[in-house]
């Protein structure tokens, strides 16, 4: 209080610029990693990825089967990512409410939108690091798995499939973040996320309700791709051979043109756009106690 020789009636704010955005991101990054809960979550994610690739290689080594292809590795390794990274995206928001630290966070940075964006950037960086780890492990696994089986590694992931797989992970992260903002409660947001991703949608390896309906019910084929992100993206993720066999054998029609894109955008808006918009709106207006 060296500048307080005389009582001041107005604040002299000329020498204190607002908190730089980069610093807010670094602080949010730090807050993800400075608790046991945060470190455990990261440890479990990394551990699960390493364990999964080790188990697959072990199975290839012990059972005399053909090793998984690059596409298989991609499908397998993204499962732990989509299970755990969105949990970080959810808790980076909801923890501020359950632990009531929002009072301090917003007292030190009054612009809540800047805080929200800093959190999003921090958790996206963490998500990116996790995805890179998963990809590296999958890559190494593919090479070693093929080596164990004594065959050439099969690199059957096209650029399109790869990009869509990454996009899916990013969308799941954004969805978790949106659910967190919208519900401001860890259990509620986690439940909603898991119900959507694992019970309603599922994936190639573990199909969910919408996935099953889509492949069994005629009416579902035209409706569900508008609602399910995964089904909307399916035409872009199938290999050409798979798409052709589905189309000729089962009478499916996959649209990767304007209709397909409209489906992707609509489903993404429902599950990612709306929660992000409504959730941010809620957070900006919420009373912090």
């Amino acid at each position, binding site marked *: 209080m060296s500048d*307080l020789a005389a009582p001041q009636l*107005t*604040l002299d704010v000329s020498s204190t610029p607002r908190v730089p955005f980069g610093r807010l991101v670094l602080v949010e990054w730090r807050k993800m990693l400075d608790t046991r809960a945060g470190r455990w979550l990261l440890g479990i994610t990394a551990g699960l990825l390493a364990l999964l690739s080790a188990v697959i290689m072990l199975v290839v080594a012990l059972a005399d089967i053909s090793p998984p292809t690059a596409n298989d590795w991609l499908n397998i390794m993204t499962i732990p990512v989509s299970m755990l990274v969105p949990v970080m995206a959810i808790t980076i928001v909801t923890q501020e409410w359950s632990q009531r*630290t929002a009072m301090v966070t917003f007292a030190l940075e009054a612009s809540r939108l800047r805080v929200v964006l800093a959190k999003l950037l921090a958790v996206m960086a963490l998500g990116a690091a996790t995805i890179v780890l998963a990809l590296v492990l999958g890559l190494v696994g593919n090479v070693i798995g093929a080596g164990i089986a004594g065959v050439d590694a099969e690199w059957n992931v096209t650029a399109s499939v790869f990009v869509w797989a990454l996009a899916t992970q990013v969308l799941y992260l954004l969805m978790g973040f949106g659910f967190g903002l919208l519900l401001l409660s860890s259990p509620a947001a986690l439940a909603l996320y898991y119900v959507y991703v694992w019970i309603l949608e599922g994936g190639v390896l573990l199909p969910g309700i919408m996935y099953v309906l889509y492949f069994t019910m005629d009416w579902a084929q035209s409706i569900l791709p508008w609602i399910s992100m995964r089904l909307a993206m399916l035409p872009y993720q199938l290999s050409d051979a798979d798409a052709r066999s589905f189309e000729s054998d089962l009478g499916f029609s996959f649209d990767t043109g304007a209709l397909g894109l409209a489906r992707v955008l609509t489903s993404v808006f429902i599950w990612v756009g709306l929660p992000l918009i409504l959730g941010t709106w809620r957070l900006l207006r919420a009373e912090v106690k």
Partner: protein
Amino acid sequence: MITVDRLTVSYGAFTAVDDVSFVAQPGRVTGFLGPNGAGKSTTMRVMVGLTPPTSGQVTIGGLRYHDIPNPGRHVGTLLDASAQHVGRTGREILAIAAQTMGLPKTRVDEMLALVGLSDNEAGRRLRNYSLGMKQRLGIAHALLGDPSVLILDEPANGLDPAGIRWMRGLLKGYADRGGTVLLSSHLLHEVEQIADEMILIGHGRIVAQGDRATLLAGASGTPTTLVTSLDNTALGAALTHAGHAVEAAGAGLKVQASPEQVGRAALTAGVVLTDLRSGGAGLEDLFLELTSSTQRDALPNGVPA
């Protein structure tokens, strides 16, 4: 300087803060007093932009909180010492705030030393803190950015008597150096001794404000004095003769007169006094009286204690 201007906060039909206006001046400690649920915390949350006002506004040093860049450097707040992540250590909690505000790491150690948290205590997680330790950490957190304005909600809550005395000295020194201090309490005696100015709030409305003398002067009615002497009978007779109402109270007398009038009567009557004090319409009575319509508990008869 904190300026609260016609602030109203409503939740549906319930009005938590009702047309409240006051000013907390720099260089002074302003006590914000009221029973639980009177609207103190809500008013303070509005000050730092955590609760949106229904109408009216608060400015700090002429600015709305939202318009203060790096607000932690100007306004130190302690709204709830328990509102911190229980899994973080005390030191980490301060370090996060210091990093946000762009302060050197040494500042964290300075503040820990200032509030008397040892290295060992600072390394413990918050879930292992007592309420008193949380309050000390919260005060350290509020002082971290070397602000010129302090807003503290129930800072003495959970502090032991030595801690309360320490905090009094800290805040007094802070105001003496020109800082603005606003602290709330539901306990009069916590605030009475350090506040230069007191704002009494009940049921969301300000019921009285001013310094101690002004508040007492505003308390209506004849002053009451409690007196004990070596000869209560003679003193009683002298006082009655002088026209003051006298009644027995414990070992002494309760007189409807000022201590000065009682002293003069004793001098004239030649009676030795062993105890003489202002007995009625103390701040506590005033506080209870002014906020009684909002008290949860009915007051027992014959309050003065």
